[in-house]
């Protein structure tokens, strides 16, 4: 911001700032042109994309209802994978969260170890974890459950650890002063303060895991993704349509269920 001679002249930017801003626009334009050339768009494919999309939807409809029993079976498996995976993740993440919380664990080495486990769990996508576990345990729901569980440890542990660190120090000090042991302080001091956060985190992760376990079947880790994979490979678009519609419905329903439970807890 500068004012020159006559105080009524006001300019928002200095000349240097104006040059800088123009440069940003020019660089952005160059970047767009450059990347458009690099990805080698084949215009013919682009022109008939609307037609292709319409064609795909036409082939999907009407859904192949005869495929439903198999879809249902894999859908139930998806639920089981998501739920079991979430429960396993919580069981492993809770102790780690206490180790990671600064106000509960004073040993820096333990805290660092817990944080490291969280980061490694979170840095790998559950689909990649699934590839790994399919290689170890073979295809099927076991690999799915484990990949969901391992991917969720970091999420649940990090968020619950942060909730623990936000627990008020006063009541903890008061319970310490009564001569309560550390486990007793955990049950009566930390847990009541962090319980709403815990349920909120667990539900949110379960919700995410329903969606994630729907695609695990693409790499052979069980669930509705197996049905999707089979239908895609056979080019049975009417089956693909049925599965996509089912996944959409399930995601919407879990979203409604979890958000209504969450609002009741908090």
């Amino acid at each position, binding site marked *: 911001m500068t004012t020159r001679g006559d105080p009524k002249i006001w300019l928002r930017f200095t000349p240097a700032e104006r040059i800088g801003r123009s440069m940003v626009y020019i660089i952005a334009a160059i970047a767009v042109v450059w990347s458009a050339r690099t990805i080698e768009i084949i215009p013919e494919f682009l022109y008939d994309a609307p037609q292709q999309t319409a064609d795909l939807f036409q082939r999907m409809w009407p859904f192949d209802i005869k495929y439903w029993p198999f879809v249902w079976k894999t859908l139930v498996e998806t639920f089981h994978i998501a739920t079991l995976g979430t429960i396993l993740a919580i069981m492993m993440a809770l102790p780690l969260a206490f180790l990671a919380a600064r106000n509960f664990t004073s040993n820096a080495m333990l805290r660092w170890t817990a944080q490291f486990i969280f980061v490694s769990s979170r840095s790998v996508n559950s689909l990649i974890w699934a590839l790994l576990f399919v290689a170890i345990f073979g295809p099927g729901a076991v690999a799915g459950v484990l990949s969901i569980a391992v991917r969720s440890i970091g999420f649940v542990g990090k968020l619950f650890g942060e909730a623990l660190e936000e627990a008020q120090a006063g009541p903890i*000090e008061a319970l310490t002063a009564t*001569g309560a042991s550390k486990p007793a302080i955990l049950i009566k001091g930390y847990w009541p*303060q962090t319980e709403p956060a815990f349920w909120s985190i667990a539900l949110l992760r379960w919700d995410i895991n329903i969606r994630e376990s729907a695609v695990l079947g693409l790499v052979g880790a069980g669930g509705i993704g197996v049905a999707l994979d089979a239908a895609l490979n056979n080019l049975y678009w009417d089956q693909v349509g049925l599965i996509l519609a089912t996944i959409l419905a399930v995601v919407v329903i879990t979203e409604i269920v979890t958000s209504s439970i969450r609002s009741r807890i908090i």
Partner: protein
Amino acid sequence: MMAMDEAVRQPGAAPVVLRLDRLRKEYRPGLPVLKDITLDFDKSGVTAIIGPSGTGKSTLIRCVNRLVDPTSGSIWFEGADIAQVRGSALRAVRRRIGMVFQEYNLVERLTVMENILTGRLGYVPLWRAYLRRFAEQDIARAFELLESVGLGADFANRRADKLSGGQRQRVGIARAIMQSPALVLADEPTSSLDPKTSVEIMELLADISAKQSIPVIVNIHNVELAKRYARRIVGMTGGNVVYDGKPDGLTAQHLSEIYGGEEWQ
């Protein structure tokens, strides 16, 4: 051990509940907050510790139940020096010392009854605390205390976060007494309360101290309240004790020595 036994046997003197001997605390080396405090506390009623903010009153009281670890000196309580005890021995000492806080420090999402029963956490096995299966006599005692702090049985199932400040402090006092303590510490118990409620809370502390014959040590910055309810006043300034005696012996000169200056009086 020896020193304590001799003190107890001194003819004519009331039995000593707590003896601080050259108690020193340095948060940073070379900068003592408490400068070798030596004090005896007997079983008689309320002792008020007065003094300006940051003078070590809170540190002194927290050294007694070891929420703060003293740098040197000894703390004689129930026949032993507790200045260095650790682990389960420390927890056994702590459960004999009740504590009342300025911000009440209740567990907000638990009910009044559960908050009072946390006073038994040093005694009951973990599974009982977890399953909320407290002994019948503990529950009966909690209801008794609920009455005697002036709340009544219909408060039992109310959540702590639904209470007013004065009501919370009453629950805080009940929790401390629930420990069956030999000593109660109160750190600025009235500083977050309005003047009328402050008087009620001090009256309650003095009353419980007399009826249950539990000595109470109160940090308080309201000199008038201290003079009204304490049998003994300890004046501290700059980490030293500069007055120790009866409330009516406390003169304007003492007060200006404790708080500095005279304009405020």
